């Protein structure tokens, strides 16, 4: 199993990616890691649907990364090796599964404008976005509840669930996501003292 990626490594990779001219927002555990030591083993970035080609192009010219994996829909990965650090898995995600009744790029713009934080040149999604994304993944969302719990243990407030429902509401999937939030909260009760 790969080693956890440190905050500094995430920043290094994000800065490198920015330098290649790729537009992205850091999501997943790597966005959580910005403020909470949740422990993540890869770096996930959200991109615009139309940027797949430019991302692949930018990576193909960099000696520091392996070529982007063949097209697998909304998720494609690479491995990055920056000076002195082990290869890091970097996953690119486009927003089709998360945009509900709006366009994928509207989701990215929404995160960019309202639900992220810019550090230097790089944007990091808020924890609510990360949880919303996790709870949106059909067929796998229940598995991500354990990661949400990990984030809570690391200090992410449980009230973040409220913001998750707000995001879902904006994209017309509030009923579905509220149900999943309820399930996650019910699961968390198994970890609390009565």
């Amino acid at each position, binding site marked *: *199993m790969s080693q956890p990626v440190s905050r500094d490594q995430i920043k290094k990779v994000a800065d490198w990616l920015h330098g290649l001219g790729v537009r992205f927002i850091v999501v997943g555990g790597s966005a959580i890691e910005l403020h909470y030591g949740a422990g993540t083993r890869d770096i996930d970035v959200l991109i615009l649907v139309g940027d797949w080609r430019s991302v692949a192009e930018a990576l193909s010219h960099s000696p520091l990364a392996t070529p982007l994996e063949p097209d697998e829909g909304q998720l494609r990965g690479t491995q990055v090796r920056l000076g002195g650090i082990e290869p890091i898995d970097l996953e690119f995600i486009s927003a089709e599964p998360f945009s509900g009744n709006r366009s994928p790029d509207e989701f990215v713009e929404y995160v960019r404008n309202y639900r992220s934080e810019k550090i230097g040149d790089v944007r990091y999604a808020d924890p609510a976005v990360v949880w919303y994304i996790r709870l949106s993944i059909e067929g*796998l969302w229940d*598995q991500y*509840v354990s990661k949400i719990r990990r984030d809570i243990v690391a200090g992410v407030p449980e009230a973040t669930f409220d913001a998750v429902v707000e995001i879902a509401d904006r994209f017309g999937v509030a009923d579905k996501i509220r149900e999943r939030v309820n*399930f996650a909260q019910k699961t968390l009760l198994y970890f609390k003292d009565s």
Partner: protein
Amino acid sequence: MHIRDEDDAESAHRDGVPLFLLESSTVTAMGCPMRFPPQLVVARSIQPAVESPFRQIGFISEAATLNPRVEDVAVALLDLDPVIARVLLERNKDAVRPDYLLKRVLTENKERLASWVRFFDLADSLPRVGKSIPAENLAREFGKNLPAGTIP
């Protein structure tokens, strides 16, 4: 008392009836992706009065059915799949309270099964009863069937 479906179990639990429905989605959400038919964990004190199509797991402790913790889920899973029970504890090690785990295993008289899958690695004071899976074999299980990790 009839517990016909998930909703019946949910509302009975909410109303303070000492039972809870253990579903695979909960175990999956605790970091052990798996599928099994729902199991009704019922306090032995009321078990004769409960009719249900769900398979039942009897708990001596009423308190554990009213406010189950992750350790209680593991103890219930011992009847279903002991190795998964141990994997569940391993993946939620940060939340496991050794004293409570010890108490729960002893209360439910599960020392033999708990020893088989080395619960004592997490609760030192647990008595060793019978044989145990070698630690290295168990360690291999910890690395299997991990929660999906590719998408955040």
